[in-house]
């Protein structure tokens, strides 16, 4: 083995030895006992309020049934009947954000953009914890505010709740 090669191997081993070694563990800070009379501040405890439950109660189920019927009317472009059914759905369960979403969508189709925006706000306040529906809310908001100047797609026949 020539000298340069031996030198290279030696250097490689030296480098490998240093880089492969684990770093020395840091010493945990030593907890000093408080002095007599000293007050230890508790860290600020921050929590967030719970969101409205979207559990499928019988009330929600009844409301969802009306939403389904409304969607059928919406697909058939029977907007007045769809509005009535979505309103009934929101009446049966006022915390059903999906009912407000479809009300907003129907009003959007009818060109009532201000009303649609108000209803969408209401939908958003109730659907905040649901990623899927928040996505739909944002999509519709973009259409209502005209950020995406395109024709609104017809609502999907099957939606997740």
């Amino acid at each position, binding site marked *: 083995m020539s000298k340069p090669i031996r030198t290279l191997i030696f250097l490689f081993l030296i480098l490998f030895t240093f880089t492969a070694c684990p770093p020395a563990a840091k010493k945990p800070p030593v907890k000093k*006992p*408080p002095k007599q*009379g*000293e*007050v*230890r*501040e*508790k860290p*600020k*405890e*921050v*929590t*967030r*309020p*719970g*969101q*409205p*439950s979207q559990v499928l*109660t*019988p*009330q929600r*189920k*009844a*409301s*969802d*049934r*009306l939403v389904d019927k409304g969607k059928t009317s919406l697909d058939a472009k*029977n907007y*007045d*009947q769809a*509005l*009535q059914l979505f*309103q*009934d759905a*929101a*009446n*049966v369960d*006022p*915390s059903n954000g999906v009912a407000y979403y479809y*009300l907003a969508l129907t*009003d959007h189709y009818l060109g009532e953009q*201000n*009303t649609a*925006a*108000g*209803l969408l*706000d*209401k939908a958003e*306040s*109730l659907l*905040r914890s649901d990623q899927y529906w928040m996505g739909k809310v944002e999509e519709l908001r973009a259409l209502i505010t005209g950020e995406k100047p395109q024709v609104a797609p017809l609502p999907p026949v099957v939606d997740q709740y």
Partner: protein
Amino acid sequence: MPIRSKYRKEKKEKKRGRTFREKARLFWRVLKIAVVVFIIAAVSIWYYLGRLDKMIEEKFDQPRKWNLPSRVLSDADYFYPGVDTLKRKLIDKLDRLGYRNVGTAISGPGDYAQLPNQIDIYLHDFSYPHEEFKGFPVRLSLEGTVITDITNLADKESLSVMKLEPEEISSIFDERMEDRTVVTLKDVPPALIESIVLIEDERFFKHRGVDPIGILRAMGANVRAMRIAQGGSTLTQQLVKNFFLYPKKSILRKLNEMLIAIEIERHHTKGEILEAYLNEIYLGQRGASSVSGVAEAAKYYFGKNVNQLSIGECALLAGMIRIPNEYNPLKHKDNAVARRNFVLKRLFDAELINKDEYEKAKVEPIISPKPVVRVGRAPYFIDFVKQQLAVLYPQEILQSEGLRIFTTLDMSAQLAAEGVVTRDLEKLEKANASVLPKDHAEPLQGVLIAMQPGNGYLRALVGGRSYQDSQFNRATQAKRQPGSAFKPFVYLTALDPRMSKTSFTPASTVDDSSFSVESGGKEWSPKNYDKKEHGTVTLRAALEQSLNIATSKIAIDAGLENVVETAKKAGISTPIDAVPSLALGAFEVIPIELAAAYTVFPNGGIFAEPISIMNVVTSKGEVLENKTIKMGRVFDAQPVYLTTNIMKGVVDHGTAASARAMGFDGIAAGKTGTTSNYKDAWFVGFTPNFLALTWVGYDDNAVMNMSGARAALPMWVDFMKEMAPPSVQDFPSPPDIVLVKIDKESGKLANSKCPDDIEEAFIEGTEPTEHCDKTDKASDVETY
């Protein structure tokens, strides 16, 4: 010889001595007079008949012959598993809707049967503004009184929801007050037509309006009976009497009746006349209005559409025409059974029904719905609706076109509200007789308004203690000072960083110590309800305890003009001056506007336009008005959430804490209101889905010496306990809201020195950073 005899003798001699010429002259003179009389009579009759013809043409030859009252309807009601039928008073509702309790087995529309652990209902057909609903039988399976399952009995399919049709609250009549549902001949069962023709005018298809044979037969029967046992009027004559003339008997009326009947028969077919008769005929009285026509009578007496009547019911209805009130099955069942059986026997004898039908119909029980008199239902709400309708339609249209007005009223809530206002005001007067003014001329008055914040629906409205005594609608017309019930709008302004001149959080502190400020050239100095000063308090404490001094300071710091702006944005239309006393509600509001303004709190800053009329539909089903939910954001969600969160504290341990002691459970928020000198007492409270406002006071602004918590809150609690099940779901929180434990008194971050802490809501980034630094609780110092 007496002079008279002499004169007669001379006259005879003179007559005998008349020449032929004289006789001819006399004859011609008489003839001329007779011709003139004849011509005059002929012209008069011709003219009179022409007038009758014109009258017939004007009134009878129209496609719409009757003035149809408009009907005001409540909202439809939904039932689903989990609903307590007892609390929702389902059976009362079915009775009000005219369903008939048939005992065990339902067989047709309008029947219901209440059995252990189940209620079977055969739903009515109903025409909604955008839907024709076809009734079907359903079974509500119950556990106790709670619905566990709903099954469509026709196809055994399980249903998640059942819709019960709206209730008729009121009708808008013309001066004749006739309640009528118009039907065509093809809607009327043959058994009813045959029964009526047989009993009332057997020769209807043979005569031409007047029936001399019938008259002679009636005369013979009357002479034999030595009383008026039979009438000789034909169906056409009866129609003419009811439709064109007046009920009072006279020879002239009889003559007119005959002439018009003949004229009508000349121009109209028997079918047209019969159809008009079936719709016109008087069949009894419901309160102040009459039951006119067979279709309305079928609904009233049997809870059915006319095409659903059995042979026995047809026979009874036909038999009732003679004396409707005597044979009324709701009042005189025995008379009704006897009359029905008499008509059935006639039908059988005339071979219009067979033996089986006769025997079956004879023993059929007469089942009627519970009699319901609609007069006086939700009168203040109806007045409010009529006011709005008057803007849209002239009165004559409302009285004649048979419009159907669909409203948002929840009839169960309305009845509960009416009961609560009456009962609680009586209780209040008895329990507080010592503080109320002695011998006050007018009684205490009350208002109760219930709304659904999520859609703005007006669900109940009581505008006074007794509509009979006072029609003044205090809910929609009175202007009263809101007092402390206005304070939440001050706090909403202060907590909104985009509106307030000074930054506030619920933990900000304010000095509740007396101060003076110049207002309108005078010194103004607010005082607390308890006449004390409370030193440094948090915003939360100031609202929970309704402290006037602290609130006034907050309003001034937030900017009085900003508070006015908040009130306007919340929909309060009455003028408000930007003066310091505004913070304490020293201006006037209309109660319904205050209730609507409060909806922004449960709605997270979104204002839902109050709605009471949803649809107006013509008698042909054409939708004239179609109101939909309208809402828009007027406040940022975060400050609204913070204010609502503090108002929860008002109910839990603030000025309205007695609500809990009165047994009101569940999540709720609200605010009491008492005006200076105790002239007005308010409480406006809400759960996430339901809001109610109560007010108590005197019309003449007399002092009643009772606070909002004492006078208005019990009424609110009693109503909410009946109508709003305890809410377990909290108000939805917007993003950027954090909950931090703070010291209740100082508003600083809680720590071991301040164990009396609460979890307070803040807009993220505004929470306190300083820790509580109380030093007088050394024993609580945490050491570790």
